[in-house]
């Protein structure tokens, strides 16, 4: 097949790929090969993939070509390397697990292969999900496809970079404090942080269990909606997964957003926000107003406590979750943990230790209640909230890595959403003067995924930022 046609296959959204496969424009084996070729060519520049499972992918594609009528039949995809995949190496971005091969499947992965999707490989991330730039990956930083000197965001940086450079059709990321939304924003791709409990956490290597949210990343809002309908739902193996019914999210799109009340929290648009990011969001507000949405001023007074609260609760939970890596059951010993994992284990151990528990952990849990109540109150005045994802456009590789606190502060607009357990859709809203992507997030009340996806869909149709591609 000609190289040119290969490129066309790499350019497709999930919806387009499904249609083309059903119309037999190409087979699953052909499109899978096109992606494997693209990975071979592009990945050495980007470092988005940690493991490419070529043999397994081709076998799965051959099988898919003989089957019919499955929602994602024959579509190649990839996953952040925190999902357990039977027989396929799973590292969580850490050398502690550099040779670990899980004996079972994460529920999300099982659902996707049951739906006929074909796993291409596992993507790079900050070790254990700890970070905002993938510079904390023990396997090297992911480079931003829009400018190789810049970070792709984190922790699901490999996921977003693989999407932006057309090395995959869709991705499953994981968001504990912004890990889906930040890289989506830095790479001009789409990502959904779901309501806590909407998608099963079973088989996903835990970072902070009261915050971890599994979610789709992709090339359009419609793609995310379709994936979410496949992966969402109650799982007996995750006691915190929700009994709420799973709607057909894709069918719920295309509603008018006339009279939709969009709240702008005044604390999010203060002096800490970069002028260019602010400008792009103001332009997005104009677009949404043009579509009939109504803009209202809201307040989240606890915004200033978000980072401190999150960076007590998340490290506390991670210090407990990572205690199991003791060199007995998973290979390498605790001296193999990287810098950031060690810092967070120490921070969490300290916050939970006798004499400090009330001052740090319990206090943070109480402030978490304030955050939840602030959002509940805001949602009595508006239907959804529009916010920046990151205070700045992508930063340079190496810029923040020696100053952990400055890296934590990148998460100022994302962690509140995890603390409240509510959903948020990150989507592209333009580019900086230097050509770096800028994103925004649409936040809704618990289990309002349909609402925020629809609002994002309307904005995407009116702007088409997704058609922009990096030159590689």
């Amino acid at each position: 097949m000609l190289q040119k046609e290969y490129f066309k296959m790499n350019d497709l959204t999930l919806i387009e790929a499904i249609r083309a496969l059903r119309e037999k424009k190409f087979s699953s084996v052909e499109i899978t090969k096109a992606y494997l070729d693209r990975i071979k060519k592009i990945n050495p520049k980007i470092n988005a993939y940690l493991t490419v499972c070529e043999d397994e992918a081709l076998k799965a594609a051959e099988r898919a070509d003989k089957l019919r009528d499955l929602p994602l039949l024959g579509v190649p995809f990839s996953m952040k390397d925190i999902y357990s995949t039977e027989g396929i190496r799973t590292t969580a971005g850490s050398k502690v697990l550099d040779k670990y091969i899980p004996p079972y499947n994460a529920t999300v992965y099982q659902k996707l292969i049951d739906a006929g999707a074909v796993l291409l490989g596992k993507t790079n991330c900050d070790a254990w999900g700890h970070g905002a730039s993938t510079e904390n990956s023990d396997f090297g930083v992911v480079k931003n496809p829009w400018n190789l000197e810049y970070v792709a965001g984190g922790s699901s940086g490999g996921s977003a970079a693989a999407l932006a450079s057309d090395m995959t059709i869709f991705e499953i990321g994981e968001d504990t404090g912004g890990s889906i939304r930040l890289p989506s924003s830095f790479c001009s791709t789409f990502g959904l942080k779901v309501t806590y409990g909407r998608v099963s956490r079973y088989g996903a290597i835990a970072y902070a269990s009261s915050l971890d949210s599994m979610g789709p990343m992709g090339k359009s809002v419609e793609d995310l909606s379709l994936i979410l309908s496949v992966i969402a739902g109650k799982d007996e193996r995750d006691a915190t997964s929700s009994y709420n019914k799973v709607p057909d999210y894709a069918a719920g799109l295309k509603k008018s957003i006339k009279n939709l009340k969009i709240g702008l929290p005044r604390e999010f648009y203060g002096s800490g926000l970069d002028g260019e990011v602010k400008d792009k969001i103001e332009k997005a507000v104009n677009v949404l107003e043009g579509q009939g949405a109504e803009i209202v001023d809201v307040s989240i007074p606890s915004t200033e406590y978000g980072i401190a609260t999150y960076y007590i609760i998340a490290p506390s939970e991670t210090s407990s979750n990572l205690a199991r890596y003791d060199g007995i059951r998973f290979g390498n010993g605790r001296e193999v943990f990287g810098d950031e994992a060690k810092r967070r284990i120490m921070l969490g151990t300290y916050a939970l230790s006798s004499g400090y528990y009330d001052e740090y952990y319990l206090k943070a849990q109480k402030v978490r209640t304030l955050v939840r109540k602030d959002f509940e109150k805001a949602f009595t005045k508006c239907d959804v909230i529009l916010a920046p994802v990151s205070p700045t456009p992508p930063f340079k590789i190496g810029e923040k890595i020696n100053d952990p606190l400055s890296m934590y502060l990148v998460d100022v607009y994302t962690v509140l959403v995890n603390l409240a357990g509510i959903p948020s859709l990150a989507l592209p809203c333009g580019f900086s003067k230097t050509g770096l992507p800028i994103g925004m997030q649409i936040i809704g009340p618990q289990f309002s995924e349909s609402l925020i996806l629809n609002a994002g869909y309307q904005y995407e149709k009116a702007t088409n930022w997704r058609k922009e591609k990096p030159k590689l």
Partner: protein
Amino acid sequence: MKIDVVKVAKLANLPLSKEEEEKYAKQLSQILDYMEKLNQADTLGVEATSSVTGLSNVMREDETEVCIPIKKGFYVTKGVFQDE
């Protein structure tokens, strides 16, 4: 220094080098200084949040199911570690 790094590392079962002890003592103290912010938040009478969706005492049917296949009395799995 706010934090006794040697003690915390022992609690966390983390072997640290002398250089790491010094580096983390400095970095973690700086981070803990930032956390002081929380003292300004008024949480009098506020309950702690440990779970956001309100689920509690979630049970499933008390029935067994095949988790990992058993052959000749042994659990059968693929190798967990790659060859050295």
